[in-house]
């Protein structure tokens, strides 16, 4: 109840604020950022008050101030974990997984043979449960980040596949007809028409995958890892009742994931500037 009313309050405040700022914020990134920040700060304050006020045991939910203290005092650990999980497993797995999904989508698109041969298999890996896959990957690729990257590849593959396949069908028939009149080759049509038209879909997948990759890498670390990494830290510190450290890692994950997502959104805005959803109606 308290949480809901707090959220409502925060939202109302933000609504007012964004109304007031609406004309001004159009092109003002600084003011645009203000709104989510105000919203976030409100939530944090309420969180602090509730956990302290209601005396919630810290092993269940520590207050933000305590989490912050933990973050500042554990910078080297957090940094090492971040490097292990994000810079290695996530980024590499993400690149490979998205790349693979994309390539398979093109293969499927390219030949009817692969379309009926690979697409069903694609569906098949869509939900290969990370729980089952992670131990197998550890078995195959060892304890280090490689096995986590492999899990990330599997997790990010399917969203990319589905979105690219859908995107490649997004070009309108008259736009395709134009290419036919030029007797454009498959690759020319792909490059100059169908990929640009597919871009909004592809970016969808890139965005979804940016968060999925992080989840995948962290969860995969629950199934065997060297003693570094965000997932390792989370699972270990829960067992040690250091819930503040858990939340510190979660905070790092949230910030890293949001930045990752934000960067992709920025690239999306640049690349699909022409799409009505970006052009703004």
């Amino acid at each position, binding site marked *: 109840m308290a949480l809901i009313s707090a959220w409502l309050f925060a939202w109302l405040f933000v609504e007012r604020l964004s109304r007031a700022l609406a004309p001004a914020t159009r092109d003002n990134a600084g003011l645009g950022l203000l709104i989510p920040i105000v919203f976030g700060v409100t939530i944090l304050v309420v969180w602090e008050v509730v956990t302290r006020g209601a005396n919630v045991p810290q*092993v*269940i939910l520590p207050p933000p101030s305590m989490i912050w203290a933990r973050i500042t005092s554990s910078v080297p650990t957090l940094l090492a974990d971040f490097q292990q999980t994000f810079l290695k497993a996530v980024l590499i797995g993400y690149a490979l997984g998205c790349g693979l999904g994309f390539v398979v989508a093109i293969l499927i698109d390219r030949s009817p043979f692969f379309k009926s041969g690979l697409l069903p298999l694609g569906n098949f890996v869509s939900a290969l449960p990370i729980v089952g896959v992670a131990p197998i990957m550890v078995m195959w690729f060892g*304890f280090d980040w490689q096995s986590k990257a492999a899990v990330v590849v599997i997790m990010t593959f399917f969203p990319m596949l589905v979105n690219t396949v859908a995107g490649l069908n997004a070009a309108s028939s008259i736009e395709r007809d134009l290419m036919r009149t030029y007797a454009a080759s498959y690759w020319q049509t792909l490059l100059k028409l169908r990929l640009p038209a597919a871009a909004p879909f592809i970016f969808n997948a890139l965005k979804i995958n940016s968060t999925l990759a992080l989840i995948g890498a962290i969860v995969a670390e629950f*199934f065997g890892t060297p003693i570094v990494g965000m997932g390792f830290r989370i699972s270990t510190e829960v067992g040690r009742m*250091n819930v503040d450290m858990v939340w510190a890692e979660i905070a790092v994950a949230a910030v890293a994931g949001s930045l990752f997502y934000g960067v992709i959104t920025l690239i999306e805005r640049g690349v699909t500037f022409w799409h009505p959803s970006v052009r703004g109606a």
Partner: protein
Amino acid sequence: QDNVTLQLKWVTQGQFAGYYVAQAKGFYDEEGLTVEIKPGGPDIAPEQVIAGGGADVITTWMAAGLAARERGVPLVNIAQPFKSSGLLLTCLKEAGVETTADFPGKTLGVWFFGNEYPFYAWMAKLGLSTEGGADGVEVLKQAFNVDPLIQKQAACISTMTYNEFGQVLKAGITPEELTVFNYRDEGVGMLEDGLYVMEDKLADPAFVEKMTKFVRASMKGWEYARANPEEAAQIVLDNDMTGAMTLEDQVYQVSEINKLTEGSTGALDEAAYRQTVDTLLSAVSPDNPAITKEPEGAFSHVVTDGL
């Protein structure tokens, strides 16, 4: 009828045979108790569950229980059905481990999630760094199976006498091929599977009464399991909802567990408690701060006195 919720530290298996037997054989009923046994799992911290009000009593290892106590969950040991510990470090001779002197430079698999305290205490005692390198040991967070040993990804892995060690043997590796370190023998043994409740509840005589009945029935269950290991294994199997276990494994497990519960009246042996606390306090480090100061009131005989 009184209701009791018991949160286990791990999944349904022979390790908890006493409780399942007590339930199946009606020992709880006889005491006027309705007991719900909640299986645990790799990410269930019973300490968290009881702090959140999800259980009346939990089983956990003493090191984890004391650690939780220091972090604001006032757990109190009310009974200790496991007299001795079953944690082993199992190594392949082939990998070059015969004695503790061979550890430097090796990769060792360790269970975390509150199970790592004995290991760190041991390494502290041996004066080995856990940061890897030629003078230290490389630590792996081991999943809860024996794959790393069988696939030779680690020189040593953690096992329990009653479970993983059996798996290693069953996989065809002979005892001659193995070097086995028992934590107890290395002087870093710690009390396992005890029963813990929240301190404030013990102020309520009705609760103490309820727990007394619970412990009494449970100990009866353990006794029965020792007398009828096969039947106990079958009872455990009946309670396994995953359908993944085999009777053979559980029979082995129950019979091994019986060795650990042998001789326990349920009451905590204060000498064993001291040894656990001392080991933990001897190995305090920033990496491994299970506890940093002498615990106060971490156990109580009020329940077992009433047995």
